[in-house]
C-alpha cells in the first residue's frame, strides 16, 4: 500500500524495478512528463491513473482529476496540452448512470482545459476485483521553442513560488472518505493549470522548474526537485500558505500540511531576477491570485529541504516514506 503513496517507496518502485526493466533512456529522466522529439516537434507525453474514493467529492470528481492530473503533468514541462486518451476500468455491477456522470464530468473538464479526447478504451473486471471505476489517461502536448523546464535545472538562488493554499484537496477527500467533519465544507482545488503556466512563461520563458505537488504534497515535490537538481531548498515556514481549515484538520489528525495532496497548485523555481514578475503574473491569474514566495535554492545541504521554523529554529523537511498515518492521540 505504501508504494502507492507518492513518497520514498513509490520512487524506489519506479527507479529500482520499472526503470531498469523497461531500459528506456527517456523514462530515466523520471519527470512527470517525458520530453520527446518527433518529426522535428518537441512533445511532452504523460500518463496517470486515478483510483480515488469517493468518485464524487466536494469541488470535483474522478472525471475532473483524470483530465486535470494529466493535463497538469504536461503543463509542468511548459507544454501546451493537445490530446488525451482515456481508459475506463469498470467493476462489474457499477451503475451505468454513475459511469455516465463521471464521463460527463470528464468531458466537461477536457473542454475547460482545451484538450481533445482522441482515443479510449473500456474494460470490465469481476465484481470485487475493482473499486467501481478506475480511469487512466495519457496526454500529449507541444513544447514551445525556447522552453526547457526540468527539475535538473534548479539552481542556487532560484526563488521558490507556490501558486496558492496547500493541502486543500487531501483534506477535502479525507473529510468525505473518512466521514470527518471540520466545521466547514472544504472544496478540492482540482483545476487545469495550463493557462496559469502560459501566463507565467509569457513574462519569463526561462522558468527553471515547475511541478504540481499532488500525492505526497509540497514536501515530496520539493525533495524530488532538490535531489534531481543537486541543490538545497530552504523554506520559510511562516510564509507557507496553509488555510485555517487545512491547518485545523491536520492538527486534529496529526498530519503535516506539507505532505497533504493538492490537485490544482503548482510550485515554480524561478531565477531571482524574474521572481517578482512571475509572482505578479501568477497573482493576475484566477488560479494564482494567492501565490507567494516560500523559499529559495541554496548550495548548502544539497538534495535536502530545510525549513526555518516560525520560532527561529530549523528542521529538515524530509521525503515521506509512504502515506501519512493519522496518529493515535
Amino acid at each position: 500500500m505504501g508504494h502507492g503513496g507518492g513518497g520514498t517507496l513509490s520512487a524506489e518502485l519506479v527507479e529500482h524495478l520499472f526503470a531498469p526493466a523497461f531500459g528506456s533512456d527517456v523514462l530515466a529522466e523520471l519527470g512527470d512528463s517525458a520530453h520527446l522529439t518527433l518529426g522535428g516537434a518537441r512533445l511532452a507525453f504523460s500518463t496517470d491513473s486515478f483510483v480515488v474514493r469517493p468518485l464524487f467529492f466536494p469541488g470535483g470528481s474522478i472525471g475532473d482529476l483524470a483530465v486535470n492530473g494529466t493535463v497538469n503533468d504536461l503543463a509542468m514541462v511548459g507544454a501546451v496540452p493537445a490530446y488525451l486518451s482515456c481508459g475506463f476500468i469498470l467493476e462489474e455491477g457499477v451503475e451505468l448512470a454513475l459511469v455516465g456522470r463521471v464521463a460527463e464530468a470528464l468531458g466537461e473538464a477536457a473542454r475547460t482545459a482545451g484538450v481533445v479526447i482522441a482515443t479510449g478504451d473500456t474494460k470490465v473486471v469481476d465484481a470485487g476485483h475493482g473499486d467501481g471505476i478506475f480511469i487512466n489517461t495519457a496526454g500529449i502536448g507541444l513544447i514551445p521553442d525556447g522552453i526547457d523546464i526540468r527539475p535538473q535545472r534548479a539552481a542556487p538562488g532560484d526563488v521558490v513560488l507556490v501558486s496558492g493554499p496547500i493541502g486543500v484537496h487531501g483534506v477535502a477527500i479525507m473529510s468525505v472518505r473518512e466521514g470527518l467533519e471540520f466545521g466547514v465544507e472544504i472544496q478540492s482545488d482540482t483545476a487545469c493549470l495550463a493557462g496559469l503556466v502560459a501566463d507565467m512563461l509569457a513574462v519569463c520563458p526561462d522558468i527553471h522548474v515547475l511541478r504540481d505537488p499532488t500525492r505526497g504534497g509540497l514536501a515530496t515535490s520539493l525533495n524530488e526537485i532538490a535531489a534531481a537538481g543537486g541543490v538545497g531548498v530552504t523554506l520559510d515556514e511562516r510564509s507557507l500558505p496553509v488555510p485555517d481549515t487545512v491547518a485545523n484538520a491536520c492538527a486534529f489528525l496529526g498530519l503535516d500540511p506539507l505532505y497533504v495532496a493538492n490537485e490544482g497548485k503548482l510550485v515554480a523555481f524561478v531565477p531571482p531576477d524574474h521572481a517578482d514578475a512571475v509572482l505578479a503574473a501568477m497573482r493576475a491569474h484566477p488560479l494564482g491570485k494567492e501565490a507567494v514566495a516560500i523559499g529559495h535554492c541554496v548550495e548548502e545541504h544539497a538534495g535536502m529541504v530545510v525549513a526555518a521554523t516560525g520560532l527561529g529554529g530549523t528542521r529538515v523537511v524530509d521525503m515521506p516514506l509512504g502515506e501519512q498515518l493519522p496518529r493515535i492521540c
Partner: protein
Amino acid sequence: MKYLDEFSDPVLAKRLFDDIRAVTTQPWSLMEVCGGQTHSIIRHGIDQLLPEEIQLIHGPGCPVCVTPLEIIDKALEIASRPDVIFCSFGDMLRVPGSGRDLFKVKSEGADVRVVYSPLDSLRIAQENPDRQVVFFGIGFETTAPPNAMTVYQAKKLGISNFSLLVSHVRVPPAIDAIMNSPDCRVEAFLAAGHVCTVMGTGEYPGLAEKHRVPIVVTGFEPLDILEGIRRAVRQLESGQHTLENAYPRAVQAGGSPAAQAMLADVFEVTDRSWRGIGMIPQSGWRLSPKYREYDAEYRFSVTGIDTEESTVCRSGEVLQGLIKPHECAAFGKECTPRNPLGATMVSSEGACAAYYLYRRLEAPNKEASSVG
C-alpha cells in the same frame, strides 16, 4: 488560526525564551513526558533555541512506542485469522513485531482497517455479524476513555462479535519508575496536558513531594511548552518542588469525572510491561471481570508467542531518557523509519523518528556530547 496560532506567536515566544534565559543560572535536565511534546519541541526547533544549560530529556510518553512486543505479536496473530476484521489507529500499522507489522499482515490478505474512532470499529461489527471485529486499544489516559466507552456500548447493545485488544498504560507510575531508577538524570517534569485533562492533577503532588521534583502540567503548542519550561526552571532555581498547572485552558484539577467514571466501570488497574522499559507495577489497565468477554486476549486465547527484540536497538534507554537518539550506534544506519529496529523510530511521536525527520542536518556527535 484561532486556538493554535496564538500559541506559536514568535514575539511571545521570544519573550518566554528571554525569561527562561534570565532565570537560568546553572544546568538543569527536564523531561517532557509526552511524545507529542517531543515532536513539537523538535519540529519547532525549541531545543535549539533554549539556553545551553537547559537539557530536554525525551520521556516515555508515546503509547505506540511502549506497547510491548508480545501484544504487537498477539495483534499480528489475531489479525491474520480469516474470520477477523482487525481495526486500529493508523500509527500502529508500521510498528514492528518480532518479524513483521500490520501492514505486512494486511498485504498478505488479512482484513486490517484503519479507523479514526474506536466507535467506527463497533459500527463495522454491526455491519459484519458473521465476523469477529477486534479493536487495538492502546494509549495513555487520553485514549482509554473512548475505548472504555466502546466496550460499554458493545455490551449495552448486545454486540457479541466485538472485542478489544488492550494495552493501556498510566503515566504517574511511569514517572515514579523513572525517578526510582538509579541512573535517573531528570530534575523536573513537563507532565502531559491531555492526560491531566482526563485524570486531573491529583496524582502528581504526591510524586512531586516524594521525589522532590517539580512537575508542571504542560500543553503541546510552542508557547505552552516554553511556559512549562519557564515554570519548571523557576522552581528548580528557587529550590521548589511542587505541582503547577501551566495548561489551565484544558486542565482542571479534577479532570473529567465522566471519563473517570467510564474508566472505573470498564477497566481495572493492573501491572503492565512497557516496551523497552519492562514491568511497571500498577501502570496499566485491563478490562474488569464484568467485561471480560470483550477481552480479545481472552476470546482468542493466543498462546505460543515467542518475542524477539533487536539486540542493538537502544530505544528502551531513549524512552527512559538515559540517552538521546543520536547516541545509539544504529541510529540513521541500521535503524531508519524505513527499517525501524524499535518503536521509537517507527512511531510518528517517537523520539528517534522525530530526530531522524527533523534533525539530520546536525552532527550526531555534537548532539551526543552535549547530552552526556
